[in-house]
């Protein structure tokens, strides 16, 4: 049996708005094997960041289970949860706003060590901070600088060092490179990759950039308006995308070759509102293949169409002979 470090079951997060319930994360299920990377992709506002935060209970889930090594973290008390954070960490998207401007690099990295009593004694902590800085490629001379004195790449390295300080098993990378220059993106991605190999980390990699996630992930889950519409091993997903939304997304990746143009699937139509969405396929309004009868009959279910390849498209499921 696979060693699943994390299992997410029927996870939901609804926000109350003046117009009704906003279904930010709506009944999400997935598992991650230890040491692997799950890419979570989707357009802005599809709920991918919310999913990451709900898993860590930085936002409280509306319902569902998050089993970390078999333990349901949604049921933990606040104190137990703080303890649990040692194992589950997050790297945020914006390395500018996510670091306290009043703390030096060493204070930022040392805080989790001190707060969670991972190490005690000033010297031990300082040695560990220097060690972490070296691990993430931050020169020792930056130890007493403030975040605003550093560039985006170095700031993100602080964010990574700070996450590593607690020796986590799982790290949720919430668009860790989207705020950085392309050249620096590659550095940070390589660093994350190296760390994974060295420390045996498990990643959930949240991004809207499919070309980033392709090189990085073992499995990819595509989200649309709070739901997973397709999930498959990375290679399989790129070679045989089945869901019309995934196909459209993949066709939007530019190919870095002269004269080579891929036929672009252009989406039209209005995006379904996530506030009190109707019980139908949420992509139906923009889908080129939409069949009113089938697609608007009920909320699509995620069905395994080939080993480890799941889709939630009733039309395709029916074409392939699955019962829906």
């Amino acid at each position, binding site marked *: 049996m696979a060693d699943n470090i994390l299992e997410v079951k029927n996870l939901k997060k609804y926000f109350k708005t003046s117009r009704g319930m906003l279904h930010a994360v709506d009944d999400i299920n997935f598992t991650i094997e230890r040491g692997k990377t799950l890419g979570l992709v989707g357009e802005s506002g599809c709920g991918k960041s919310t999913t990451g935060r709900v898993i860590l209970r930085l936002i409280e889930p509306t319902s569902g289970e998050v089993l970390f090594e078999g333990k349901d973290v949604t049921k933990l008390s606040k104190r137990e949860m703080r303890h649990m954070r040692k194992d589950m960490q997050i790297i945020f998207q914006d390395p500018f*706003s*996510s670091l306290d401007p*009043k703390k030096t690099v060493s204070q930022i990295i040392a*805080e989790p060590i001190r707060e969670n009593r991972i190490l005690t004694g000033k010297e031990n902590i300082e040695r560990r901070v220097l060690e972490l800085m070296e691990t993430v490629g931050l020169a020792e001379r930056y130890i007493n600088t403030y975040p605003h004195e550093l560039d985006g790449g170095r700031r993100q390295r602080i964010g990574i060092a700070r996450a590593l*300080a607690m020796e986590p098993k799982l790290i949720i990378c919430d668009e860790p490179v989207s705020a950085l220059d392309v050249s620096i993106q590659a550095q940070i991605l390589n660093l994350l990759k190296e760390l994974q190999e060295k420390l045996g980390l498990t990643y959930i990699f949240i991004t809207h950039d499919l070309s980033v996630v392709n090189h990085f992930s073992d499995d990819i889950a595509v989200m649309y308006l709070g739901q997973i519409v397709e999930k498959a091993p990375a290679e399989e997903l790129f070679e045989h995308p089945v869901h019309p939304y995934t196909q459209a997304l993949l066709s939007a990746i530019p190919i870095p070759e002269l004269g080579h143009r891929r036929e672009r699937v252009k989406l039209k139509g209005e995006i379904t509102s996530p506030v009190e969405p109707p019980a139908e396929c949420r992509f139906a309004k923009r889908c080129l293949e939409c069949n009113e009868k089938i697609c608007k009959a009920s909320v699509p279910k995620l069905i395994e169409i080939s080993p480890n390849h799941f889709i939630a498209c009733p039309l395709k499921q029916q074409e392939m002979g699955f019962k829906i």
Partner: protein
Amino acid sequence: MHRYIIKRLIMLIPVLLGVAFIIFAIMNVAEGDPVYQVAGPDATEEQLDALREEMGLNGSLIQRYFRYIGNLLRGDLGTSYISRMDVMQLYLLRLPNTLRLASIAMVVAVIISVPLGIVAAVNQNSWKDTIAMVLALLGLSMPNFWLGLLLIILFSLKLGWFPSGGAEGVVSVVLPAVTVGVGLAALLTRTTRSSMLDVLRQDYLRTARAKGVSENNVVMHHALRNALIPIITIFGVQFSNVLGGSVLAETVFAWPGVGRLVVDAIDQRDIPTVTGALVMTTMLVTVVNLLVDIVYAYVDPRIKAQYTK
């Protein structure tokens, strides 16, 4: 940093000269000829001229201004028309009383308002927040001389807990300090709340929570420290208001401070005393504002970086 402080100190000089000129000019426009007042109705023309010379009232406004500044630089603010005492001496005699009143009022205001503002912000839109905001609104809208009178009616006349006036013993400072401090406390509560609300939404607080920092430390170490700048600003700006407010409170409570000195001097048309007290108070306020600017640098490393540039 030192260069910055020195630069700011040098910049104080033109500011003070300008302020002194404005005060001096206004006082000169406002008065009738004080010589008549001092000399009495029966004085002869020669006596008046002699007195004018003696009181330093001869020459044009500009001449008199420069004479005044020259004396000021030597620490001489002139002589009171009424008591015939040195104005600097009068001022220094009263200043400790006012500073005592103002500092107690300010300290009490901070002790009450900052925690209240934090609680209100952390529990935004709850009943705690509502109560804090209603209190703050009351405190802001109540004129403090009226509050002072109400306090006297209740605590001095009805209950007899505190004296209604004077500056004898520790208890006598309570009512005036409350009167002066309430407005400041109300303003600081609102400032603390809004500044905290702003910071509580910042991404780095989420980072701190993700690090496993306890909620108390998140609020006190990460949020409050970052929310302090507007609070310090208001605190500094309000110092002049507290001095202004203490003029009223000192009158209501017969508190022998600078405020009373000025009010009495205005009543008696004692021009040198009014001018001197105002110039000195202006200096005090300006210096306090400078101190506030320097404190910023210690609270926020980003501002410090700008200063040292």
